[in-house]
């Protein structure tokens, strides 16, 4: 038997789930799609004594329109459901483009949006994309709900603001701005592997010049990394070769990645800059075609 022994609960309502977590405190662990957590248990890197399986809790999945034109995504929504949502590319092209980069289709069949966000692998796509999009996370406990921005949620290497008695229940993504340029790109050893370096970015234009931008990299630190200095450089500038070259340099300088068996820090800094330049170029060339505008 691979995982260490645990008690297993399979609640059917959110109330039941959060009261179980309240009851078991730090001993309890939430199981969603299991695509990251099951390996941790099988390798016995995680040995929770109580598992609260969310998979039969009703009302936690689905993609709905938020009041302000944004999206309200249930945390238990399978990544595959986002991938198959024919309207998502128009409603949020950056999110739609990120999903197929997650693992492989068998993984996305089970893996959930909320599971990936809470697991918080620093090389995962969804944490970086939600930071870039300015998404909010709804955390629910027996005591009620609180809302934490994606930017405040990620605290460091696989560390997040969620408490042991809380469940991530909903992800609120602000409305996609008409005319926004965007791109996501990553470098991994093989298709579907975790990124050694990746970037998710958008730019809002005012005529030929950039009015606002967000550049978020992943795989280059303990959490998604926004490079605000590079964003500042873009503001007011045209997305021409000279600007992009400078943005590349700034990103490379600003990143402080670690070395590991997959890539050295030097490589990650270099590739982070190059990927950002290429992604901006791709965003500018694609323009706003089919962009929800």
């Amino acid at each position: 038997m691979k995982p260490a022994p645990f008690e297993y609960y399979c609640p059917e309502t959110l109330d039941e789930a959060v009261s179980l977590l309240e009851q078991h405190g730090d001993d309890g662990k939430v199981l969603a799609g299991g695509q990251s957590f099951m390996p941790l248990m099988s390798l016995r890197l995680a040995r929770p004594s109580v598992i609260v399986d969310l998979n039969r809790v009703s009302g936690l999945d689905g993609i709905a329109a938020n009041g302000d034109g944004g999206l309200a995504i249930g945390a238990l929504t399978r990544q595959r459901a986002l991938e198959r949502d024919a309207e998502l590319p128009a409603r949020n092209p950056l999110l739609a483009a990120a999903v197929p980069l997650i693992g492989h289709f068998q993984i996305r069949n089970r893996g959930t949006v909320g599971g990936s966000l809470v697991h918080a692998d620093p090389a995962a796509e969804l944490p970086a994309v939600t930071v870039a999009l300015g998404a909010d996370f709804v955390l629910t406990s027996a005591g009620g709900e609180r809302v934490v921005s994606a930017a405040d949620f990620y605290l460091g290497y696989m560390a997040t603001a969620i408490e042991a008695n809380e469940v991530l229940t909903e992800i609120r993504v602000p409305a996609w701005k008409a005319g926004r340029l965007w791109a996501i790109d990553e470098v991994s050893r093989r298709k579907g592997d975790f990124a050694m370096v990746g970037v998710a970015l958008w730019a809002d234009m005012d005529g030929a010049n950039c009015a606002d931008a967000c550049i978020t990299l992943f795989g280059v630190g303990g959490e998604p990394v926004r490079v605000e200095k590079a964003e500042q450089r873009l503001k007011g500038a045209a997305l021409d070769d000279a600007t992009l070259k400078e943005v590349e340099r700034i990103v490379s300088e600003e990143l402080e990645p670690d070395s590991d068996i997959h890539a050295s820090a030097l490589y990650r800094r270099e590739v982070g800059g190059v990927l950002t330049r290429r992604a901006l170029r791709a965003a500018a060339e694609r323009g706003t075609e089919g962009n929800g505008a």
Partner: protein
Amino acid sequence: MSTKSILNLTVNGKAYEKLVEVRMTLADFLRNELDLTGTHLGCEHGVCGACTVIMDGEAVRSCLLLAVQAEGATLETVEGLADGDRLHPLQAAFQDRHALQCGFCTPGFLMTATAFLKENPSPTDAEIREAISGNICRCTGYQPIIEAIGQAAPEAGGKPRE
């Protein structure tokens, strides 16, 4: 709740009811409790794809599920592909194109391809490559596997889901 649970599920059209330890993975359950050893275990942490089965129509890694999570589910494993002595079109194509050598990864590839072709019955080579990117083969080589899936597509994709 305890550490054991009664599990009801259907595998390859046959209903089962078993008392299982809640920490048992679906892969171990299929192999050790149902003696369906066609589902192979390679890495046992979701990387190699050898344990891929079809659960309620979707290809999933059976090592990344607890058996108890399959309560009420309908599963298809590699044992369910052939009809008696008559090979499934994908199996026949794998044989025809020499798409297996040691055969260890084959069940995972077959189940992945079965689910994939139901969704996309006339795939391009690029789409086939993408579909099998989550399955690792260490001896045959991917080229004959891609050819076999392409060859089987018209027939395998058209086979209605049970």
